[in-house]
């Protein structure tokens, strides 16, 4: 959450997250370079430039695989949510590792000639007609450009400036980028039949990411939030007031496709947008304490009575007019502008648990 932008909003949890991540990267590179050259088919003499290129390339692939696993794991099991918290630093570090890999490759395989090394990288192999010998570098270049865009736009300013849907759409490029990384490896390093260890890592990594994302997407589709049903005068029935536990919410899809989250706090009901202003995280899965709901993804907070973040923060989300029809909770599906106060509705006596 921001008042004035600063480069990085550090806190002890982020220091710890980044410390563990950096230690992991250093350990991976050390093992790759010093401990496991035989296992990785490096028994043939290679120079340090190639060895380092492979080490950073392998490290970038493993980091990207872990990053791509965190999202679906957090959707499948909430215990993985803490890993989601500072994933952007993980992503930025991965880009630096990937750029180092690319620089080692370009400064070795495409240098030492009168041709510009970047032109050489693009023009050395242009045979697109077969898998064996395909210019796999192009997949790596595409993935690297995408990763650079995602890292460069990771500051909260970009989310606010571009709007979350545009920002999210850009960041969906991570999916084709990961597929491109797998293709870069499959049609590059993996073609060496003697290199079994890295083949196993690439196959397990690629398939794990594919399966986890399919699993999360299918389970979201089947466990999808219920649709609100039509009530009087165009309003939408969300649920029975007695179904909402104290401190929690019920989420319903509106005819527009948006989701409304109806919270119960101190026996009072309030309705806000389910989409956090930060990254559209599911606010309805958060818990209310002292009228503030905390987004389970990154900890942004909003007052459920007016959709505003507590001062001095400035984030706002839309609210909805709410009423009761007997014990049915009904909302006006036309959202109020972000930050509009709405009087809470008391839970009826017969619906009190």
């Amino acid at each position: 959450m921001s008042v004035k932008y600063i480069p990085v909003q550090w806190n002890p949890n982020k220091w710890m997250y980044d410390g563990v991540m950096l230690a992991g990267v250093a350990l991976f590179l050390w093992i790759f370079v010093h401990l496991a050259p035989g296992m990785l088919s490096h028994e043939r003499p290679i120079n340090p430039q190639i060895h380092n290129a492979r080490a950073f390339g392998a490290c970038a692939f493993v980091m990207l695989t872990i990053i791509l696993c965190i999202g679906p794991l957090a959707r499948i099991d909430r215990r993985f949510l803490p890993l989601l918290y500072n994933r952007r630093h993980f992503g930025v570090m991965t880009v630096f590792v990937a750029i180092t890999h690319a620089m080692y490759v370009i400064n070795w395989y495409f240098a030492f000639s009168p041709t510009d090394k970047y032109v050489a990288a693009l023009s050395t192999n242009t045979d697109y007609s077969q898998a064996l010998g395909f210019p796999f570098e192009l997949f790596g270049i595409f993935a690297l450009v995408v990763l650079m865009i995602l890292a460069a736009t990771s500051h909260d300013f970009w989310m606010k400036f571009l709007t979350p849907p545009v920002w999210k759409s850009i960041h969906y490029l991570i999916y084709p980028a990961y597929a491109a990384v797998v293709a870069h490896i499959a049609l590059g390093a993996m073609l060496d039949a003697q290199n079994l260890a890295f083949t196993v890592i690439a196959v397990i990594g690629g398939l794990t990411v594919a399966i986890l994302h399919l699993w999360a997407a299918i389970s979201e589709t089947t466990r999808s939030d219920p649709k609100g049903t039509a009530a009087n005068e165009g309003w939408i029935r969300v649920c029975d007031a007695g179904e909402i536990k104290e401190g929690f919410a019920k989420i319903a899809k509106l005819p527009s496709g948006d989701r409304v989250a109806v919270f119960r706090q101190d026996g009072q009901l309030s309705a806000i947008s389910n989409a956090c202003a930060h990254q559209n995280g599911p606010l309805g899965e958060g818990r209310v304490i002292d009228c503030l709901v905390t987004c389970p993804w990154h900890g942004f907070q909003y007052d459920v009575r007016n959709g505003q973040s507590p001062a001095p923060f400035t984030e706002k989300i839309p609210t909805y007019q709410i009423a009761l029809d007997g014990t049915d909770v009904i909302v006006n599906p036309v959202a109020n502008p972000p930050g509009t106060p709405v009087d809470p509705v008391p839970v009826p006596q017969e619906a009190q648990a």
Partner: protein
Amino acid sequence: MTTAETIMLLVRWWIIIGALVATAFLFVGIDRIDEDARGAYIFRPLLVPAILLIWPLVLWRWLILERGAENWARRYAPPRASHLIVALAMAAAIAIALWLGLTSRQSWPADIAPEQLTSPEGASE
């Protein structure tokens, strides 16, 4: 000029234009369209790489915000609904890539004697 040289020329011009946009946006535009950026200067260099990469998008958003034509309701339309389609496409692409790689694996031709290549005509030693 080869295709590769043309691509690199376009990349250079893309970055040059991006640098011009970054200068204008970070010195003038950002203060006009985002109240949270007023008086906040240390974070601005962090925005330069993104502007170099996506400057057309920056110009488009800058124009919308300058005109006050922002549709606030669109900010809250999560694109999560398309996750299943994207996940299916990614899984298919990964499976195809791995299949192509695994069926094209080969052993290093260690039994072939090395051959001394001659340098091309006119190439300097």
